[in-house]
Protein backbone atom coordinates (compact mmCIF):
# COMPACT_ATOMS: atom_id res chain seq x y z
CA UNK A 1 0.00 0.00 0.00
CA UNK A 2 1.26 3.45 -0.91
CA UNK A 3 2.35 5.68 1.92
CA UNK A 4 0.09 8.54 2.87
CA UNK A 5 1.49 12.05 2.59
CA UNK A 6 -0.23 14.64 4.76
CA UNK A 7 -1.73 17.54 2.78
CA UNK A 8 -0.88 20.10 5.43
CA UNK A 9 2.69 21.12 5.73
CA UNK A 10 4.23 21.61 9.13
CA UNK A 11 3.80 25.24 10.22
CA UNK A 12 6.67 27.50 9.24
CA UNK A 13 8.98 28.31 12.13
CA UNK A 14 8.31 31.63 13.83
CA UNK A 15 10.64 34.42 12.75
CA UNK A 16 13.28 35.20 15.36
CA UNK A 17 12.22 37.75 17.96
CA UNK A 18 12.79 41.34 16.97
CA UNK A 19 15.15 42.11 19.80
CA UNK A 20 17.19 39.01 18.92
CA UNK A 21 17.56 40.33 15.39
CA UNK A 22 18.52 43.76 16.70
CA UNK A 23 21.18 42.16 18.91
CA UNK A 24 22.37 40.15 15.96
CA UNK A 25 22.71 43.35 13.92
CA UNK A 26 24.69 45.04 16.69
CA UNK A 27 26.96 42.00 16.94
CA UNK A 28 27.46 42.11 13.17
CA UNK A 29 28.45 45.80 13.32
CA UNK A 30 30.87 45.13 16.17
CA UNK A 31 32.41 42.11 14.41
CA UNK A 32 32.82 44.07 11.19
CA UNK A 33 34.51 46.94 13.01
CA UNK A 34 36.85 44.54 14.75
CA UNK A 35 37.65 42.70 11.53
CA UNK A 36 38.25 46.02 9.77
CA UNK A 37 41.03 46.28 12.29
CA UNK A 38 41.61 50.00 12.38
CA UNK A 39 39.77 50.61 15.59
CA UNK A 40 41.96 50.76 18.61
CA UNK A 41 40.64 51.15 22.11
CA UNK A 42 44.00 52.74 22.90
CA UNK A 43 43.11 56.38 23.32
CA UNK A 44 45.32 58.80 21.41
CA UNK A 45 44.21 61.75 23.55
CA UNK A 46 44.77 59.60 26.65
CA UNK A 47 48.33 59.06 25.44
CA UNK A 48 48.80 62.80 25.00
CA UNK A 49 47.62 63.29 28.60
CA UNK A 50 49.98 60.55 29.81
CA UNK A 51 52.83 62.17 27.88
CA UNK A 52 52.11 65.50 29.55
CA UNK A 53 52.08 63.86 32.99
CA UNK A 54 55.40 62.18 32.19
CA UNK A 55 56.97 65.44 31.05
CA UNK A 56 55.97 67.16 34.30
CA UNK A 57 57.25 64.12 36.24
CA UNK A 58 60.59 64.33 34.42
CA UNK A 59 61.02 67.97 35.42
CA UNK A 60 60.24 67.14 39.07
CA UNK A 61 62.37 63.97 39.06
CA UNK A 62 65.39 65.80 37.61
CA UNK A 63 65.36 68.17 40.60
CA UNK A 64 65.60 65.26 43.07
CA UNK A 65 68.99 64.41 44.53
CA UNK A 66 68.92 60.62 44.42
CA UNK A 67 67.79 57.87 42.08
CA UNK A 68 65.43 56.58 44.79
CA UNK A 69 63.62 59.93 44.99
CA UNK A 70 63.34 60.00 41.20
CA UNK A 71 61.81 56.53 41.26
CA UNK A 72 59.19 57.73 43.79
CA UNK A 73 58.27 60.63 41.52
CA UNK A 74 57.97 58.30 38.53
CA UNK A 75 55.89 55.82 40.53
CA UNK A 76 53.43 58.57 41.50
CA UNK A 77 53.31 59.67 37.86
CA UNK A 78 52.73 56.06 36.78
CA UNK A 79 49.69 55.74 39.07
CA UNK A 80 48.23 59.04 37.82
CA UNK A 81 48.98 58.11 34.19
CA UNK A 82 47.38 54.67 34.58
CA UNK A 83 44.17 56.14 36.00
CA UNK A 84 44.09 58.79 33.25
CA UNK A 85 44.68 56.23 30.50
CA UNK A 86 42.05 53.81 31.83
CA UNK A 87 39.50 56.62 31.95
CA UNK A 88 40.41 57.66 28.39
CA UNK A 89 40.14 54.08 27.09
CA UNK A 90 36.74 53.52 28.71
CA UNK A 91 35.52 56.90 27.41
CA UNK A 92 36.72 56.13 23.86
CA UNK A 93 35.18 52.67 23.81
CA UNK A 94 31.85 54.07 25.09
CA UNK A 95 31.84 56.80 22.49
CA UNK A 96 32.51 54.26 19.75
CA UNK A 97 30.02 51.84 21.36
CA UNK A 98 32.67 49.16 21.31
CA UNK A 99 32.78 46.60 24.10
CA UNK A 100 36.05 46.99 25.97
CA UNK A 101 36.86 43.38 26.58
CA UNK A 102 35.76 41.56 23.49
CA UNK A 103 37.83 40.44 20.52
CA UNK A 104 40.93 42.58 20.01
CA UNK A 105 40.36 44.48 23.27
CA UNK A 106 40.60 41.29 25.31
CA UNK A 107 43.65 40.10 23.37
CA UNK A 108 45.30 43.48 23.92
CA UNK A 109 44.79 43.29 27.68
CA UNK A 110 45.96 39.66 27.88
CA UNK A 111 49.15 40.49 25.95
CA UNK A 112 49.81 43.84 27.59
CA UNK A 113 49.39 42.75 31.22
CA UNK A 114 52.12 40.07 31.71
CA UNK A 115 55.13 42.33 30.93
CA UNK A 116 53.61 45.05 33.14
CA UNK A 117 53.20 42.55 35.99
CA UNK A 118 56.80 41.39 35.52
CA UNK A 119 57.91 45.03 35.51
CA UNK A 120 56.20 45.63 38.87
CA UNK A 121 57.91 42.59 40.39
CA UNK A 122 61.35 43.46 39.03
CA UNK A 123 60.94 47.02 40.34
CA UNK A 124 60.63 45.60 43.88
CA UNK A 125 63.60 43.27 43.33
CA UNK A 126 65.87 46.02 41.96
CA UNK A 127 64.80 48.43 44.68
CA UNK A 128 65.62 45.89 47.38
CA UNK A 129 68.92 45.07 45.69
CA UNK A 130 69.89 48.75 45.88
CA UNK A 131 69.84 49.24 42.10
CA UNK A 132 67.24 51.99 41.64
CA UNK A 133 69.23 53.57 38.81
CA UNK A 134 68.51 50.55 36.60
CA UNK A 135 64.76 50.76 37.18
CA UNK A 136 63.91 53.40 34.50
CA UNK A 137 65.65 51.41 31.75
CA UNK A 138 63.85 48.23 32.81
CA UNK A 139 60.51 50.09 32.91
CA UNK A 140 61.01 51.41 29.40
CA UNK A 141 62.03 47.98 28.07
CA UNK A 142 59.11 46.13 29.65
CA UNK A 143 56.57 48.84 28.84
CA UNK A 144 57.79 48.69 25.24
CA UNK A 145 57.48 44.90 25.31
CA UNK A 146 53.93 45.19 26.62
CA UNK A 147 52.99 47.71 23.94
CA UNK A 148 54.53 45.58 21.16
CA UNK A 149 52.74 42.45 22.43
CA UNK A 150 49.39 44.19 22.90
CA UNK A 151 49.85 46.19 19.72
CA UNK A 152 49.92 43.00 17.66
CA UNK A 153 46.11 43.12 18.00
CA UNK A 154 45.80 46.82 17.41
CA UNK A 155 46.58 49.31 14.66
CA UNK A 156 50.10 49.17 13.19
CA UNK A 157 51.27 52.39 14.80
CA UNK A 158 50.92 50.92 18.32
CA UNK A 159 53.61 48.20 18.03
CA UNK A 160 55.89 50.72 16.29
CA UNK A 161 55.58 52.91 19.38
CA UNK A 162 56.41 49.87 21.54
CA UNK A 163 59.64 49.28 19.60
CA UNK A 164 60.61 52.93 20.18
CA UNK A 165 60.10 52.41 23.92
CA UNK A 166 62.29 49.30 23.83
CA UNK A 167 65.05 51.27 22.07
CA UNK A 168 64.76 54.02 24.69
CA UNK A 169 65.00 51.37 27.44
CA UNK A 170 68.13 49.92 25.88
CA UNK A 171 69.62 53.41 25.71
CA UNK A 172 68.74 54.06 29.36
CA UNK A 173 70.41 50.84 30.51
CA UNK A 174 73.69 51.54 28.72
CA UNK A 175 74.14 55.28 29.25
CA UNK A 176 75.06 57.23 32.41
CA UNK A 177 72.32 57.12 35.02
CA UNK A 178 72.20 60.93 35.06
CA UNK A 179 70.53 60.70 31.64
CA UNK A 180 67.69 58.54 32.97
CA UNK A 181 65.18 61.32 33.68
CA UNK A 182 65.68 62.87 30.26
CA UNK A 183 65.38 59.54 28.48
CA UNK A 184 62.21 58.87 30.50
CA UNK A 185 60.91 62.33 29.54
CA UNK A 186 61.69 61.74 25.86
CA UNK A 187 60.07 58.29 25.91
CA UNK A 188 57.12 58.48 28.30
CA UNK A 189 56.56 62.13 27.46
CA UNK A 190 57.65 62.57 23.85
CA UNK A 191 56.67 59.19 22.43
CA UNK A 192 53.23 59.22 24.04
CA UNK A 193 52.50 62.69 22.72
CA UNK A 194 54.16 62.04 19.34
CA UNK A 195 52.23 58.82 18.71
CA UNK A 196 49.10 59.87 20.58
CA UNK A 197 48.20 62.72 18.24
CA UNK A 198 48.17 60.62 15.02
CA UNK A 199 46.30 57.80 16.80
CA UNK A 200 43.69 60.29 18.01
CA UNK A 201 43.33 61.81 14.56
CA UNK A 202 43.25 58.62 12.52
CA UNK A 203 41.79 56.03 14.85
CA UNK A 204 38.78 57.48 16.56
CA UNK A 205 40.07 59.66 19.38
Amino acid sequence: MASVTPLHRAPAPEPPALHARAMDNLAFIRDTMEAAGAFTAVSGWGMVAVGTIATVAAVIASSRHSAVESVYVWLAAAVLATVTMLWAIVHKARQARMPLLSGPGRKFVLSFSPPMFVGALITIVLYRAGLPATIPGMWLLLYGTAVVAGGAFSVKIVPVMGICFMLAGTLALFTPTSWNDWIMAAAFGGLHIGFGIPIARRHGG
Partner: protein
Amino acid sequence: MAKHGTARDDRNVGDLRTVRGKSEMPSAASSRADALDRLIHERLRLGIVSALAVNDSLSFSDLKKLMNTTDGNLSVHARKLEEAEYISCTKSFEGRMPKTQYRLTPAGRRALERYLDHMEALIRATRER
Protein backbone atom coordinates in the same frame (compact mmCIF):
# COMPACT_ATOMS: atom_id res chain seq x y z
CA MET B 1 32.35 33.71 6.78
CA ALA B 2 29.41 33.20 4.49
CA LYS B 3 29.33 35.26 1.34
CA HIS B 4 27.12 38.25 1.68
CA GLY B 5 23.99 38.12 -0.39
CA THR B 6 22.56 40.20 -3.14
CA ALA B 7 20.26 43.17 -3.14
CA ARG B 8 17.43 40.73 -2.44
CA ASP B 9 18.63 40.77 1.14
CA ASP B 10 16.59 43.92 1.57
CA ARG B 11 14.07 41.40 2.90
CA ASN B 12 15.22 42.19 6.43
CA VAL B 13 13.07 45.29 6.41
CA GLY B 14 10.18 43.24 5.09
CA ASP B 15 10.67 40.84 7.99
CA LEU B 16 10.20 43.68 10.43
CA ARG B 17 6.89 44.59 8.85
CA THR B 18 5.77 40.95 8.98
CA VAL B 19 6.57 40.68 12.63
CA ARG B 20 4.72 43.90 13.32
CA GLY B 21 1.70 42.52 11.50
CA LYS B 22 1.66 39.63 13.95
CA SER B 23 1.52 42.08 16.88
CA GLU B 24 4.78 40.77 18.21
CA MET B 25 6.36 44.16 18.35
CA PRO B 26 5.77 46.48 21.27
CA SER B 27 4.37 49.83 20.20
CA ALA B 28 7.53 51.79 21.06
CA ALA B 29 9.64 49.35 19.10
CA SER B 30 7.13 49.52 16.28
CA SER B 31 7.65 53.21 15.82
CA ARG B 32 11.42 52.66 15.93
CA ALA B 33 11.21 50.09 13.17
CA ASP B 34 9.29 52.58 11.05
CA ALA B 35 12.20 54.97 11.37
CA LEU B 36 14.80 52.37 10.39
CA ASP B 37 17.16 53.51 7.71
CA ARG B 38 16.43 50.91 5.07
CA LEU B 39 19.50 51.88 3.13
CA ILE B 40 21.96 50.66 5.72
CA HIS B 41 19.71 47.97 7.18
CA GLU B 42 20.84 45.60 4.44
CA ARG B 43 23.71 43.49 5.71
CA LEU B 44 26.35 44.21 3.11
CA ARG B 45 25.69 47.96 3.16
CA LEU B 46 25.69 47.89 6.96
CA GLY B 47 29.03 46.11 6.79
CA ILE B 48 30.50 48.68 4.40
CA VAL B 49 29.39 51.59 6.59
CA SER B 50 30.62 49.87 9.79
CA ALA B 51 34.02 49.09 8.30
CA LEU B 52 34.43 52.65 7.01
CA ALA B 53 33.37 54.05 10.38
CA VAL B 54 36.59 52.74 11.93
CA ASN B 55 38.88 53.49 8.99
CA ASP B 56 39.88 56.74 7.40
CA SER B 57 39.34 55.10 4.01
CA LEU B 58 39.23 51.61 2.51
CA SER B 59 39.93 50.44 -1.02
CA PHE B 60 37.49 48.43 -3.09
CA SER B 61 39.63 45.32 -2.67
CA ASP B 62 39.92 45.85 1.12
CA LEU B 63 36.14 46.02 1.39
CA LYS B 64 35.67 43.05 -0.92
CA LYS B 65 38.01 40.94 1.21
CA LEU B 66 36.46 42.15 4.43
CA MET B 67 32.88 41.57 3.33
CA ASN B 68 33.75 38.32 1.55
CA THR B 69 31.63 39.25 -1.43
CA THR B 70 31.89 39.55 -5.18
CA ASP B 71 32.96 42.58 -7.25
CA GLY B 72 29.44 42.96 -8.66
CA ASN B 73 27.70 42.80 -5.32
CA LEU B 74 30.04 45.21 -3.68
CA SER B 75 29.86 47.78 -6.46
CA VAL B 76 26.03 47.65 -6.54
CA HIS B 77 25.74 48.22 -2.80
CA ALA B 78 28.56 50.75 -2.65
CA ARG B 79 26.87 52.74 -5.43
CA LYS B 80 23.62 52.84 -3.46
CA LEU B 81 25.46 54.23 -0.46
CA GLU B 82 27.29 56.68 -2.69
CA GLU B 83 24.03 57.88 -4.24
CA ALA B 84 22.69 58.53 -0.75
CA GLU B 85 25.93 60.42 -0.01
CA TYR B 86 26.67 58.09 2.89
CA ILE B 87 30.06 57.27 1.41
CA SER B 88 32.33 59.05 -1.03
CA CYS B 89 34.35 57.37 -3.72
CA THR B 90 37.71 58.46 -5.16
CA LYS B 91 39.11 56.81 -8.25
CA SER B 92 42.80 57.04 -9.04
CA PHE B 93 45.63 55.07 -10.58
CA GLU B 94 48.42 53.33 -8.75
CA GLY B 95 50.86 52.85 -11.59
CA ARG B 96 48.64 51.35 -14.24
CA MET B 97 46.22 49.81 -11.79
CA PRO B 98 42.96 51.64 -11.13
CA LYS B 99 42.28 52.16 -7.44
CA THR B 100 38.91 52.95 -5.89
CA GLN B 101 38.96 54.36 -2.40
CA TYR B 102 35.87 54.77 -0.21
CA ARG B 103 35.33 57.09 2.75
CA LEU B 104 32.42 57.52 5.13
CA THR B 105 30.81 60.95 4.87
CA PRO B 106 29.47 62.85 7.91
CA ALA B 107 25.95 61.95 6.70
CA GLY B 108 26.94 58.28 6.62
CA ARG B 109 28.36 58.46 10.12
CA ARG B 110 25.17 60.09 11.38
CA ALA B 111 23.10 57.40 9.64
CA LEU B 112 25.11 54.66 11.36
CA GLU B 113 24.71 56.37 14.73
CA ARG B 114 20.96 56.66 14.17
CA TYR B 115 20.83 53.01 13.19
CA LEU B 116 22.71 51.99 16.35
CA ASP B 117 20.27 54.08 18.38
CA HIS B 118 17.35 52.31 16.73
CA MET B 119 18.77 48.86 17.41
CA GLU B 120 19.43 49.72 21.04
CA ALA B 121 15.94 51.21 21.40
CA LEU B 122 14.40 48.04 19.98
CA ILE B 123 16.27 45.92 22.49
CA ARG B 124 15.37 48.26 25.34
CA ALA B 125 11.70 48.37 24.36
CA THR B 126 11.49 44.58 24.24
CA ARG B 127 13.14 44.26 27.65
CA GLU B 128 10.84 46.86 29.20
CA ARG B 129 7.74 45.06 27.98
